[in-house]
């Protein structure tokens, strides 16, 4: 029984983020179990994943750390490198491979890169932002590290569903812009809820002595958004696409500045 033999030697899990199922397979059931826990809520039973990555686990310590991520396109394939992993991905074939040690951070980075590349072609992006759903509408809270993403997420009242406290997933479709939950967690170390909702507002976070919301000019909003969009590839065509996406986004979705005191009252403004 070849299928049974394959199942015994190769474990797999399908991770579905932003409605995009990606199958990960590896000859190590313990690592798959780790991924099942890490991506709980985003594990899919889809039998037709859009892409598949084969993970080759390297012995601990074999791969050097502390190198910047590099994302290059060459002869029909993407090549992703960081000190802790090397990955190759052929989008047209739908397949890729990753060499890494048995840790969840390397594959997490690979998945982020894959999603940024796919979103860039479709008018969406990953944004350094916490996001949450209230009354069926999504609110994004963007800022650099220390701006208050985790703080505002941790202050959310019970009627709010948290999509992420770190990396927001923004998709453009014919109905407008939507935010999806992601497992890309920040300091809360809490996976977001696997929901989707139309984006009502993006707030650029500043901590201050009172709670207030201020409008921004479109160009100020676009500049701020571009600074917080997560993108890795040094590809002029895709960088241009991300630039256009940010400019389009600020024309359709209010991007405002939220100054807030770190207490729960700030959520009275988020309706």
């Amino acid at each position, binding site marked *: 029984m070849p299928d049974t033999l394959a199942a015994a030697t190769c474990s797999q899990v399908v991770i579905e983020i932003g409605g995009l199922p990606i199958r990960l397979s590896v000859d190590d059931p313990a690592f798959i179990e780790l991924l099942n826990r890490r991506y709980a809520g985003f594990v899919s039973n889809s039998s037709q994943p859009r892409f598949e990555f084969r993970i080759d686990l390297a012995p601990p310590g074999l791969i050097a750390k502390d190198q910047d991520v590099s994302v290059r396109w060459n002869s029909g394939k993407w090549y992703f490198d960081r000190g802790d992993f090397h990955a190759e991905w052929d989008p047209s074939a739908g397949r890729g491979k990753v060499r890494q040690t048995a840790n969840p951070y390397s594959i997490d980075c690979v998945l982020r890169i894959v999603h940024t590349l796919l979103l860039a072609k479709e008018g969406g992006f990953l944004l350094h932002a916490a996001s949450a759903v209230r009354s069926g509408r999504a609110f994004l809270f963007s800022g650099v590290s220390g701006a208050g993403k985790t703080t505002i997420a941790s202050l959310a009242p019970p009627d709010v569903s948290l999509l992420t406290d770190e990396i927001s997933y923004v998709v453009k479709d014919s109905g407008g812009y939507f935010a999806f939950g992601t497992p890309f967690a920040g300091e809360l170390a809490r996976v977001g809820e696997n929901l989707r909702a139309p984006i009502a507002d993006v707030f650029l976070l500043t901590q201050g002595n009172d709670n207030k919301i201020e409008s921004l000019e479109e*160009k100020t909003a676009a500049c701020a958004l*571009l600074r917080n969009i997560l993108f890795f590839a040094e590809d*002029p065509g895709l*960088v241009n696409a991300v630039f256009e996406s940010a400019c389009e986004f600020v024309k359709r979705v209010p991007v405002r500045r939220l100054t807030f005191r770190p207490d729960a009252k700030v959520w009275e403004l988020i309706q």
Partner: protein
Amino acid sequence: MMEKRYVARDTYVASRLMGGEMMVMSTRDSTLFTLNGVATAIWEAADGKTPLDEIVANRICKEYDVTPEVAMKDAEALVEQLAGHGILIVSDQAILPKAISRENSK
């Protein structure tokens, strides 16, 4: 007599007019620039064929209260600055599209 100078937008940039000012991003390194009104006027006219002094005369001196000498001096400094950032090409000859591509391949 001063030589004519020509300016052309680099092909490795993305740009969009927002609120009367041009946002420009280098697609080589994702550096972002916001151009003021004068710089935006020069940027929009930088087709590689129109000499800089004509751009200054037709786009700057007509719209802003500035003498041609001062406007030209400021424009020279500005285009050098933008060229230094790699988003504008400056030449003493008209810049053809092929020349822009060659410049970019260096």
